[in-house]
C-alpha cells in the first residue's frame, strides 16, 4: 500500500528552495517557477537525490559553497564534473535541469537554439573549453585543501529512499 510521505525532521524546505533558486540562476540566469520549487523539494522528500555514494563530506561542502551562486557555483560545477561526476552537487544540478526543461515557464530557455553560424558554434566551443580549464585550475586551489579537510571528518548517514507516491 502506498505511503504518504511526510517531511523528515532533517528536511529544511526553505534551504532546499534557496538551493533550487541558486541552481536555476546558475544554469539559466532566471528564477524558478513555484512548480519547479515544489517538485525540487518533493524529490528530496522522497529521498531520490541523496545516495550513499554521492553524499560524503566533500559533496556536502561543495553543495554549501555552490549555494552562494555566481562564481562560487561555477567553480563547484566545474570541479564536480571532473572529480565528483556522480556526487551530490551534480545530482542536484541535473535534477534542477530536468525540472526546468519540462516546466512551462522555463523550458524555452533550455530548448532555445540561437541559430548561430557553424563557425560561431566552434568558436563558442573553444571558448567554453578554455574557460573550463581556467576554472578547473582556479578551483583546485580551493578544493584540494577542502578535500583533505573533509577526508578527516566523519560522514553523516544517508536516509534510504522513501517508498510510495508523493
Amino acid at each position, binding site marked *: 500500500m502506498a505511503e504518504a510521505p511526510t517531511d523528515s525532521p532533517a528536511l529544511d524546505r526553505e534551504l532546499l528552495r534557496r538551493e533550487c533558486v541558486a541552481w536555476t540562476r546558475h*544554469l*539559466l540566469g532566471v528564477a524558478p517557477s513555484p512548480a519547479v520549487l515544489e517538485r525540487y523539494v518533493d524529490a528530496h522528500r522522497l529521498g531520490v537525490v541523496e545516495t550513499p555514494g554521492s553524499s560524503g563530506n566533500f559533496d556536502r561542502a561543495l553543495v554549501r559553497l555552490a549555494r552562494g551562486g555566481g562564481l562560487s557555483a561555477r567553480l563547484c560545477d566545474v570541479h564536480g564534473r571532473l572529480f565528483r561526476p*556522480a556526487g551530490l552537487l551534480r545530482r542536484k544540478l541535473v535534477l534542477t535541469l530536468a525540472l526546468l526543461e*519540462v516546466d512551462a515557464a522555463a523550458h524555452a530557455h533550455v*530548448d532555445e*537554439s*540561437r541559430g548561430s553560424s*557553424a563557425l560561431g558554434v566552434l568558436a563558442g566551443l573553444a571558448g*567554453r573549453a578554455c574557460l573550463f580549464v581556467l576554472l578547473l585550475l582556479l578551483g583546485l586551489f580551493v578544493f584540494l585543501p577542502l578535500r583533505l579537510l573533509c577526508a578527516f571528518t566523519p560522514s553523516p548517514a544517508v536516509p534510504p529512499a522513501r517508498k510510495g507516491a508523493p
Partner: protein
Amino acid sequence: MKSLTLVGSGASAVHFAETALERGWRVTLLDVGRARPEHVGPELSFAGLKRSHPRASEYFLGPRFEGVLFPGAAGEYYGFPPHREYVFAGHAGQPWRAEGLEPLFSFARGGLAEAWTGAVFPFRDEELVDWPFGHDRLAPHYDTVARRIGVMGVEDDLAAFVPLHAHLEQPLDLDPHSRRLAERYGQVRGRLHGELGVYLGRSRAAVLGSARPGRGACEKKGRCLWGCPNDSIYSPLHSLRELEAHPEFQYRSGVLVQSFEVEDGGRVTAVHLRRADGTRERLPVERLVLAAGTLSSGRIVLESLARAGEPAPRLGGLMDNRQVLVPFVNLSMLGSPVEYESYQYHQLALGITPPPGRSGREYVHGLVTTLKSALIHPIAQSVPFDLRSALGLVREVHAALGLVNLNFHDTRRPGNALELDFSGGGRERGGESRLVIRYEPEPGEGARIADALGRVKRALWRLSCVVPPGMVHVRPMGASVHYAGTLPMSRTEEPRTTTESGRLRGFANLWLADGSTFPFLPAKNLTFTLMANASRLACEDF
C-alpha cells in the same frame, strides 16, 4: 468449428490470430495483458505538453522522478517516460536469472512491440540460408502484413539489402537534418559504395501518412518515444482491437500461462493458468499455439517438460542482435534551429556490406536517427563540461546531433540457452521455478564490430559528420529485445526443433509462432518478419 488457443498478444500472436480467423478458426487468446494508460494531452505536441499541460513534469519525469537520469545511474537509459514502464514491467509469476544477457520481458497488451520504433526490414535470401525456406515463402506474408499495418518506404539504394514488398506508402517528408544527410549522400554515394561498402536509404517504417479507422495520420508531434497519441505508429494493440470485433475471437487477459499438459502420444490436452489473483486454473485446449515471445514461450515449454518428468530441460541456441550506438555531430548542421515538430524516430537507414570473402548473411544494418524532440538533461550531463557550459553547448549543437544504431547478426550456439532452476522451491514441493538465461557472445564478435564501426565512422565523415571520441556505446546483450532461436524450424527430424510449419516435434498439436522458431538472426529488426512468419504459419497447418 475448429478452435485454437493462442498465448501472447504481441506482434506474432495478433497476426497469427488474424490469419487463422480469416481461415475459419475460432481463436482464444490468453494474455497477462497489462493495459496501456490513456494518452496524456493527446492533442498536444512534445513542446506543447511542456508549454501548457499542468502535469507535464509528472508526465515526463514521473511522480517519483523515475524519468530523471541522475549521474551515475546504473544500467541503460531507455528514455521511456514513466507512464510507459508498464511495457517492460516484470511479473511475480515469472522470476528469472541471467548471465551474459540483460533480458527485457513484456506482459503488456501488445507485448514488446508496444515500444518498437516501427522499423520494417524484410529478410532476404542470403539471410535465410539457415532457414528451411527462402524469401519467396515469406514474401506474400510480408505483403499481407504491410497491408494490415501500413508501411512507408521507397525503392532506393537499400532495396539491394531490404527486399521490396507490396503496399508501400509514400514516406513522410524528411526532417531538415535527415534531408541534409540524404543530400550529402547523393554527392558521395559512389565512394561510399566502392570504398566502404556503405549504403544509405530511406528507413521503412510502420507509420501512417494518412488516417485509417482507429488510427490517425502522423502529425509530427515529436512524441514517438513517449507513445504516439495519434496511434500513427503501428502497435499489435491496434490489431487486437480489430480482432476483438470478430465473433470467433475471444481475448482473455489477466492470465499467465505457466505450462501445458501432455498425454501419451504427445497430445497437448490443457494449459495451466495463473490468474491475476494468484489462483490456478486448468483450461482444456484442442490446438495450442505459443506466441508469447522467445523467453516466455521457452519458459512454458521448459515448465511443461519438467512437469512431464524431464529432469533438467534445456533449450539451446538463444540469439539476440548486438547493437552498437554511434552518436555523431553533423558539422553542416551546427547552429541550425531545432525542428521540434517532427517525426522523432529514424527516417534513414544504413546498409553495410560484409567484408570481402564473407557470407552475405554478415550484412550489418543501421538505423539513423537525428535528434529532434528529446529530454536534454541526459545529454547535457554526458558532455565533459560543467552543466552550465554543457547546456549552452547542447543548445547550439542540438540540431546537429544524431545516432546510428548498428545491428549485428547472431547465430545459434548450444551454450546460449534457457534452463529452469528449482533450487528456490523444488518442483516436488510445488515450488516455482526460476528461468535461467545464459548467453556468451560469438568469438570474433569484436573484430566484426570493429570492422563495421570503422567503415561507418569513415562514411559519416564523408557525410560531414564526426563521431565524438569515447562516445560509441556497445549495448549489453538483451538490449535489442530481438530474442530468437530456442526452438528453430528445421527440415531434419531433431529434438527441440519445429517443422517448417512451426509444429514442435514430438507433439501432435503444439505450435510455436514467435522468434523461437528462427534458425538464424539477421542484423535487421525482426518484428516485421515475426508478423509475416506468424501469418505464414497460420496458413500452413491451419
